[in-house]
């Protein structure tokens, strides 16, 4: 654990981790502020309701995003266009440090996702939040798994078009959920559990693939 933390800090310092935690806190602040605002009684409630059911799910897209930030911060050091590429490759045992940093980034991402999903769940208990916390957890796990698969790929087409469908999926999921909430329906439980199962499978496969191949890919550059 200590080694993992040290390896992570060799590459990014404390900078990236603090940034992501701060962004998470910023989102919590936004959610809390909007919840408090929506509790204030106003004459015209249509705008507040519309805001909650349509605009707010866009914020929950942050959970899939947190799978990308921390991992890409480490993976980018295996790309020759990144400043510091040669320096980090010249360090002794840099391949081991790279593998440990990836493991640490995955661990931190998982912690952030658990925090985010818990916050999302607490929010959905108190306010009529359309997107199920399980769906956003599934999307976050799916993004993290795919980011692990494409971490060392340099082709921009592959990188962008493999992650982009997840964000489109997140948009569609929040749109459908909002529409269903207006009709008084919910996404069926079977769909939620199947998507969560698929996401966990992709996440585990991505993690195993990344840890198994990262040393070889670091040495190849």
């Amino acid at each position, binding site marked *: 654990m200590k080694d993992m933390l040290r390896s992570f800090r060799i*590459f*990014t*310092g404390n*900078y*990236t981790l*603090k*940034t992501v935690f*701060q*962004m998470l806190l*910023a*989102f919590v602040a*936004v959610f809390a502020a909007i919840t408090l605002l929506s509790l204030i009684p106003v004459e015209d409630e249509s*705008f507040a309701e519309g*805001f909650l059911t349509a*605009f707010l799910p866009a914020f929950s897209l942050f959970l899939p995003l947190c799978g990308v930030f921390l991992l*890409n*911060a480490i993976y*980018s050091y295996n790309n020759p*266009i*990144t*400043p*510091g590429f040669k*320096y980090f490759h010249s360090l002794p045992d840099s391949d081991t440090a790279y593998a440990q940093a990836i493991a640490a980034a995955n661990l931190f991402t998982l912690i952030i996702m658990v925090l985010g999903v818990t916050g999302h769940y607490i929010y959905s208990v108190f306010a009529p939040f359309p997107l199920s916390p399980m769906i956003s957890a599934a999307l976050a796990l799916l993004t993290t798994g795919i980011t692990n698969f494409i971490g060392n790929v340099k082709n*921009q*087409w592959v990188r*962008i078009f493999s992650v982009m469908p997840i964000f489109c999926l997140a948009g569609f999921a929040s749109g459908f959920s909002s529409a269903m909430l207006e009709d008084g329906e919910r996404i069926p439980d079977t769909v939620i559990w199947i998507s969560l199962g698929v996401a966990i499978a992709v996440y585990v496969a991505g993690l195993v693939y990344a840890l198994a191949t990262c040393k070889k890919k670091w040495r190849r550059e």
Partner: protein
Amino acid sequence: MKVLKYLFRRSFQSRWLANLLTFILVVAAMVLVFVLHEDRGSEDYLICKVTPHAVGMMFAFINFIVLIADVTGNRLMRSAPISPSLRTFGIPMYCTIIGGGIAFVINVAYTVFCLASGHDVLHISDMLVFSAAVTALVIISGTLCLNIAYGSIVMIYAWMPIGLLGFIVPDGVWKNGFGLPLWAGVLIFIGAVVVSAVISFAASQIIYKKVDFKPLPQTNVPHA
């Protein structure tokens, strides 16, 4: 110029595909505005003016977000020898060029559309007012985001004013516009760009004095 070259090379040459895709989105938003154009008195009159700028903001922010990894997020760039000029000149200049540039492109396209299709110039001046507000927001938030340690937090709050426009702008204005003459619109836009650029340069000077992003002392570097 060296730092500007570095920033543009990092955001446009290395990530040309992300830029291309978001620029296609800007063009698509413009085409939608041309097709679904509403005249004064309609409820959606001002929505046509806001939409392309919201997408243009996304184009600018994509550039800023990818640059975080190369400027403040990169461990070596925080203490590189070009750090002083990067932080006090490069970043505010880059944000001004990107923010002002995309707003300029959108406004020119909209002006050509209005003149070609015979709409009056009040449409253009209404567009320019929103353009001024969004461009100022983009320039200042981009500078803060790229210059402060952990500054990417700015990106989350920078979107909020666009979402709050429904509260700020009264109903009558949504239907009939601001009714300003064209010269006033142009003046507001240019003024907003200049003022926000000045604020960005001043802010980055102050931030550089406070933040710990300094080049390493040369005595610590071993001779080859």
